[in-house]
């Protein structure tokens, strides 16, 4: 029955123009980034592989921002618009509800990825990295979006309010993205290295660097970068299960 929730949310994205707005915003971001990389005098001096790495970071960063904002309203809107009770009264299970919402968020990522694909192909032209660029941005992006969506859904069941869910989720995203802004010197410190290993976003960006700058395109050579992201997904799933269980105990009325 998750299929009907998924389809409903996709229709809602079309009816409320939300989906089109996300597509437009991300396309503008990718256009601006690609244009800068290719035409700016300083940025155009970048090695092509460095440029691909930067574009990959922009695509995954934009996708995560869209995911967090979009997914924050998937469950909370049902609470705030008082539609959750009717859903809970139907034979739909909570698992089906969550799966439908998860697929809706992953579909948004798929649309963002499809919008990014032409930019990736054009900027990677002549580098012989086009395939690896498309595959690894897709792989790392899918896992990151999956983990963050699970996390946002867990927070949604906990707070039941869009404002609180959005604020908390953005703070978590910002906290995990912060190390990406550290200078290379700062990243060599022991503390930064430990934080880097545990941070899924750091692992994703380091993984893209490994593929695009160091030309290690095989899956085996990138497993070390995938593990922290997978661990993040498992932890987020665990948090979601706890959050759903707490919701089942408390019921629809808040104490």
């Amino acid at each position, binding site marked *: *029955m998750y299929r*009907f929730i998924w389809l*409903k949310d996709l*229709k*809602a994205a079309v*009816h*409320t123009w939300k989906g089109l707005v996300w597509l437009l915003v991300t396309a503008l971001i990718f256009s601006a980034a690609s244009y800068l990389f290719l035409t700016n005098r300083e940025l155009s001096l970048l090695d092509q592989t460095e440029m691909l790495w930067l574009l990959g970071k922009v695509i995954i960063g934009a996708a995560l921002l869209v995911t967090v904002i979009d997914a924050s309203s998937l469950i909370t809107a*049902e609470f705030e*618009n*008082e*539609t*959750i*009770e*009717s*859903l*809970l*009264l*139907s*034979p*739909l*299970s909570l698992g089906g509800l969550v799966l439908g919402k998860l697929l809706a968020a992953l579909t948004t990522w798929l649309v963002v990825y499809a919008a990014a694909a032409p930019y990736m192909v054009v900027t990677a032209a002549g580098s012989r990295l086009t395939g690896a660029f498309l595959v690894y941005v897709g792989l790392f992006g899918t896992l990151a979006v999956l983990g963050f969506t699970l996390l946002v859904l867990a927070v949604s069941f906990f707070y039941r309010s869009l404002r609180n869910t959005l604020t908390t989720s953005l703070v978590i995203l910002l906290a995990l993205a912060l190390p990406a802004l550290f200078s290379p010197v700062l990243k060599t410190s022991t503390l930064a290295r430990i934080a880097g290993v545990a941070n899924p976003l750091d692992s994703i960006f380091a993984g893209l660097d490994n593929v695009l700058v160091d030309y290690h395109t095989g899956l085996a050579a990138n497993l070390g970068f995938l593990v922290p992201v997978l661990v993040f997904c498992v932890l987020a799933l665990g948090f979601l299960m706890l959050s759903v269980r707490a919701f*089942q*105990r408390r*019921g*629809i*009325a808040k*104490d």
Partner: protein
Amino acid sequence: MAGVISARAISKSYGDRKAVDGLDLAVEGGAFFGFLGPNGAGKTTTIRMLTGVLRPDSGTITIDGHDSRDRQHIASVIGVVPESRGFYDWMSGEEYLDFFAALYRIGDRARAVRQLLADVGLADRGGTAIGTYSRGMKQRLGLARALVNSPRVLFLDEPTLGLDPQGQEDVQQLLKRLNEGGVTVFYSSHLLHEVAHLCSVIAVINRGRLAAVGTLAELQRQTDSEDLRDIFMALTND
């Protein structure tokens, strides 16, 4: 049929406040059961526990012989017009009912939706966005949603709230027809004349406890009052 709805010693607290306190209820199959109580008496909490969306802190509930925690079975036999009345405003009435018919795995959904819209008097507005509906039309749509699975037990929390007199009359006639067809109706309302007119058995709760239950004649004898308003006041004035 007997004991279609049964609640034994159910309680529910929100923090330190006891919303429902050891409530016992038994509703026989085919009854039109009125459920009255002042604001904050625990009516909505009780309905939410009976319909399985809220777990009682203690006590047991069975609906149609099944524990209320058996959500799949309960969902298949009950229809509910809940207190919360949210709708997907961007959907049309038809799309809305079709969505719920799909969740209930109804076979011929298009035909079922047409019939439901006709039953609640929305046949000519089925294709219009719910956001453009009046409050009364949304009430009717909520009732249609509650009937989408042809329920054997119908829970209604203030179903005629916001309806004009004609709308109230239409809903009452529909509920009477359903009840005559064997549907058990659990009816919570502040409109005492409606309850007196429709219900075969009336329960009054106050501060989360059952104050009285019986036919209108029994409640009249018990409180030495004629009018249901006086009965209500006598049972709920502390």
